[in-house]
């Protein structure tokens, strides 16, 4: 199958977003079943939420409680080792920061072959093992676990505050906003020269339909974890 036939699917995601992890794993699995070219686009959910006047869903106590249960059920259904956090609202506000997304942006620019494994490792740290994700040593450990060589890791960590990296993260976020994004994950399927935007990790039936493909369920046999 020629690459030109593959339909481009962009996944705009932020590692602070657990539903983005579900979308990420599902789309990674479907690369071997659907004729797609999956492009991972790390962006800033915080910036999207601010720009659109949105608010985090955890503001409504009953909704936060339900989301906790929903995510555990989905984790079981999709075989993703999501384990939650004892104080999700506090942790999302205080234990995750923009440096994580800047690191993923730098990887996109300098060594994109490591983007998938580093993304997964960061989700595992934050949403599976409840480990720190803010200290440079934590980011270094994640990069190493993801298979990034030591010298490359050092170079990536050194450039997190570079204007070029910040500008690229802003650009990617602006692109998502232009597609109508207001949250994460934001999935854009390019079909027939048109972008089709979907929000959330529960529109795969519609995405399959627009791609002319078939939904084959959670494909847990293809789980990476």
């Amino acid at each position, binding site marked *: 199958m020629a690459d030109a036939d593959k339909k481009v699917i962009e996944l705009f995601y932020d590692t602070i977003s657990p539903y983005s992890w579900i979308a990420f794993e599902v789309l990674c699995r479907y690369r071997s079943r659907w004729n797609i070219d999956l492009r991972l686009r790390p962006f800033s959910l915080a910036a999207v939420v601010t720009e659109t006047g*949105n608010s985090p869903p955890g503001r409504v106590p*009953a*909704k936060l409680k*339900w989301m906790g249960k*929903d995510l555990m059920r989905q984790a079981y259904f999709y075989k993703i080792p999501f384990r939650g956090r004892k104080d999700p609202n506090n942790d999302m506000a205080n234990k995750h920061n923009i440096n994580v997304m800047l690191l993923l942006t730098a990887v996109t620019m300098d060594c994109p072959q490591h983007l998938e494994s580093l993304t997964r490792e960061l989700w595992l740290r934050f949403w599976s093992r409840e480990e720190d994700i803010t200290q440079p040593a934590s980011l270094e450990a994640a990069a190493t676990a993801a298979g990034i060589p030591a010298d490359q890791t050092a170079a990536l960590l050194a450039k997190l505050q570079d204007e070029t990296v910040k500008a690229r993260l802003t650009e990617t976020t602006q692109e998502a906003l232009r597609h*109508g994004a207001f949250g994460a994950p934001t999935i854009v399927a390019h079909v027939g020269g048109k972008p089709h*935007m979907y929000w*959330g990790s529960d*529109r795969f039936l*519609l995405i399959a339909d627009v791609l002319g493909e078939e939904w084959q369920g959670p494909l847990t046999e293809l789980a990476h974890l």
Partner: protein
Amino acid sequence: PGRWGSSNMAAPVQARKTVEFFYDVLSPYTWLAFEVMCRYQQKWNIDLKLRPFFLAGIMKGADNRPPAMVPAKGQYMTKDVLMLTDMYKVPFNWPSNPTEVMFVKGSVNAGRFLTTVDMNCDQYLEELTRQLFLRIYYRDEDITEPASLLSAAMKAGIPEDLAKQLLSTIKDQTVKDRLRETTQTALDYGAFGSPTIVAHVDGKPKMFFGSDRFELMAHMLGEKWHGPLPELAKAKI
């Protein structure tokens, strides 16, 4: 007499699992979920119990806000509802003035009418619910005036004199109380919007919000998800 293989030697039939569907006809995604549950009533070993509630009461009780208050989200949902209802073959049209329909006119009379039908002749509840959805979200018609409710009732097959009698009860305290109780029951299950679906599995209530958890629900009920099942569509236009 004396027949071998009498019925008490047969394998016990699996008890139907109760699935409670808490809903307000004001919500577009709720129509989608309603039609899907009605189709799956025929496929899954479930006992579907329709529970009309009052969405404004849920929003207040859970301190929630309507999602379309975020403009980009509202724009997305407008398209999303059309794509989903098209895929599921539910004949949805956006009303010419959705803000007026959803936030000004509301659903208190419709909720009370559904409640009194539930209390007195629940065999009509499914079709009355459908006829109200068709009014508000297919033909852009009113669902607040007595004449509107009467028309929906008769289209649902409720005899005219019974329909008029039921209509006369919608301001009764018993009916108001029942609608309030159902709303509170949903809040107690953790509801914060419509639809709220509660599947009772192994004696435990499992709450689902929205119209996009059916595959997961199937998995938890030990049933199979067959997708939209448009061939079982009941909303006749």
